[in-house]
């Protein structure tokens, strides 16, 4: 037990000792990342869930009305917005909504002069700072869910049990949501875990553009300063968070699909 502990402290990755970063020499890399991680977890977590819910609902709607006006307008819109480079949309929103109209703060995760705490005034300040990065990420990541859900819906709507439900005279709302959408949702949930990788990728540049105090912003700084210790540690953190996310999604999947419970 004692020996194991000792070996742990000597180790490198096991103790989260990545050396000292060139950009933040006064802290260890682990401390630097530890301070930044909560910001990204909240931002990326919240925007991914938002984008998933909105995108999936739009996809259900488009799939149900396939071939008609709602379908084509949603598909064309999602194609367009999904092609926006996240950092570019961030720059435009920053210019229009923050610089020109001044509705939102221009940079950072909280007002300069305040220090992070859990007080109500700080939280509302942080929320105001996170609106633009969050909006950027939601707009650019939503389209994947729209297409996935629309195509799954169209496939599911071709199944016999949906025709049977319709023939039974169930209300179309019930057929769309309780019969088709529930089954069409499953592949989208599987994709949810893997998609976090691309959200994190987008978040790196978006956080950089908005000077947000998260781990994406850190990678932005690390690249500019050729800070390799920080880069290596960040890649490990990104990969580990992906693994944790996929694990959680697998657990959720068991709740959603009774067939995999045994």
């Amino acid at each position, binding site marked *: 037990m004692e020996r194991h502990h000792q070996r742990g402290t000597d180790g490198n990755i096991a103790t989260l000792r990545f050396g000292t970063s060139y950009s933040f020499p006064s802290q260890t890399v682990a401390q630097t990342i530890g301070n930044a991680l909560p910001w990204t977890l909240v931002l990326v977590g919240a925007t991914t869930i938002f984008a998933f819910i909105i995108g999936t609902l739009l996809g259900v709607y488009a799939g149900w009305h396939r071939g008609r006006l709602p379908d084509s307008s949603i598909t064309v819109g999602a194609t367009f917005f999904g*092609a926006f480079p996240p950092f570019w949309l961030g720059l435009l929103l920053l210019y229009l909504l923050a610089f020109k109209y001044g509705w939102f703060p221009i940079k950072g995760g909280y007002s300069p002069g305040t220090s992070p705490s859990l007080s109500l005034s700080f939280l509302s300040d942080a929320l105001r700072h996170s609106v633009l990065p969050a909006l950027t990420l939601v707009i650019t990541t939503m389209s994947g869910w729209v297409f996935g859900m629309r195509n799954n819906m169209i496939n599911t709507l071709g199944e016999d049990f949906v025709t049977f439900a319709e023939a039974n005279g169930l209300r179309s709302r019930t057929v769309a949501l309780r019969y088709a959408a529930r089954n069409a949702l499953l592949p989208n949930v599987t994709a949810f875990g893997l998609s976090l990788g691309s959200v994190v*990728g987008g978040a790196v540049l978006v956080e950089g553009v908005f000077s947000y105090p998260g781990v994406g912003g850190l990678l932005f700084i690390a690249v500019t300063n050729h800070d390799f210790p920080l880069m290596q540690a960040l890649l490990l953190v990104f990969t580990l968070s992906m693994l944790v996310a996929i694990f959680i999604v697998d657990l959720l999947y068991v709740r959603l699909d009774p067939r995999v419970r045994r």
Partner: protein
Amino acid sequence: MSTTRHSTGRRAIPGSLRFLGRALRTLWSNGKARTGLIILGLIIATAVLAPVIAPHSPTATTFPPYRGPDSVNWFGTTGNGQDVFSQMIYGARVSLLVGFGAGAVATLVAVTLGLVAGYRPGIVDEVLGFVTNLALVVPALPLMIILAAYLQGRSVWTIVLVVAFTSWATGARVIRSQTSTLRTREFVTSAVFSGERLFRVAFREILPNMTSLVAASFFAAATAAVLAEASLEFLGLGNPSTVSWGTILYSAQQQNALLTGQWLMVLAPGLAIVLLMVSLTLINFGVDALSNPRLREK
């Protein structure tokens, strides 16, 4: 077999070309894919005819720097006094090159690994599956950023390789699962019994049955590559002397173009990237409809 095919063909058109023509015709019949093909065609034409269309040289530093849009420099000038509009025209070349280059390399890797893994269950499949899952789990863009930062050689080809290296995994997984379902079909078994070698069975018997999957993974990888190239160059990880949409965005960010009224320098390259990605996505819708009749437009 091949002699009969030649004698029935009216002209001596190679089989692969005829196949490509048929695929294009089928894509053209899909409304979305047609729109995508037209936009892509326009962008390719711009890239090919760049010396004819561009009013100035993209690299000549002959204009006053930091100029806003006017009648001479339609999109303004960079901090070095280069014409942004001409850079936009020439920039199409790099985006197309990286998109199609990285897309092709990634697809080649995906097809090879996917076919071998799907055709050889057991230890080979296990090992390749592990490598694929590993590549899927590591977030692509951060990995690309770090690879590009490590590789000091700053050329377009570095970006092509970095992007290709990080975006083959999804395609490999899809192709692997399709191969493993095709492996047990009768036509494959009969090809094996007639003594054909593994390479030939995989590439000549199995592969033609998933052309649409291969095309879909190519266009998906190309779309991702266009975005990745722009992102890497925006971060300053590209070659700053290359003229591309990403480097225009980089220099716009360096000179705070939005705050000095040069907003076209940010808007134009971004919109060009959006158009190219939209065209590739639209073509991919057509490819999806080829493989899945339920997605076809009525």
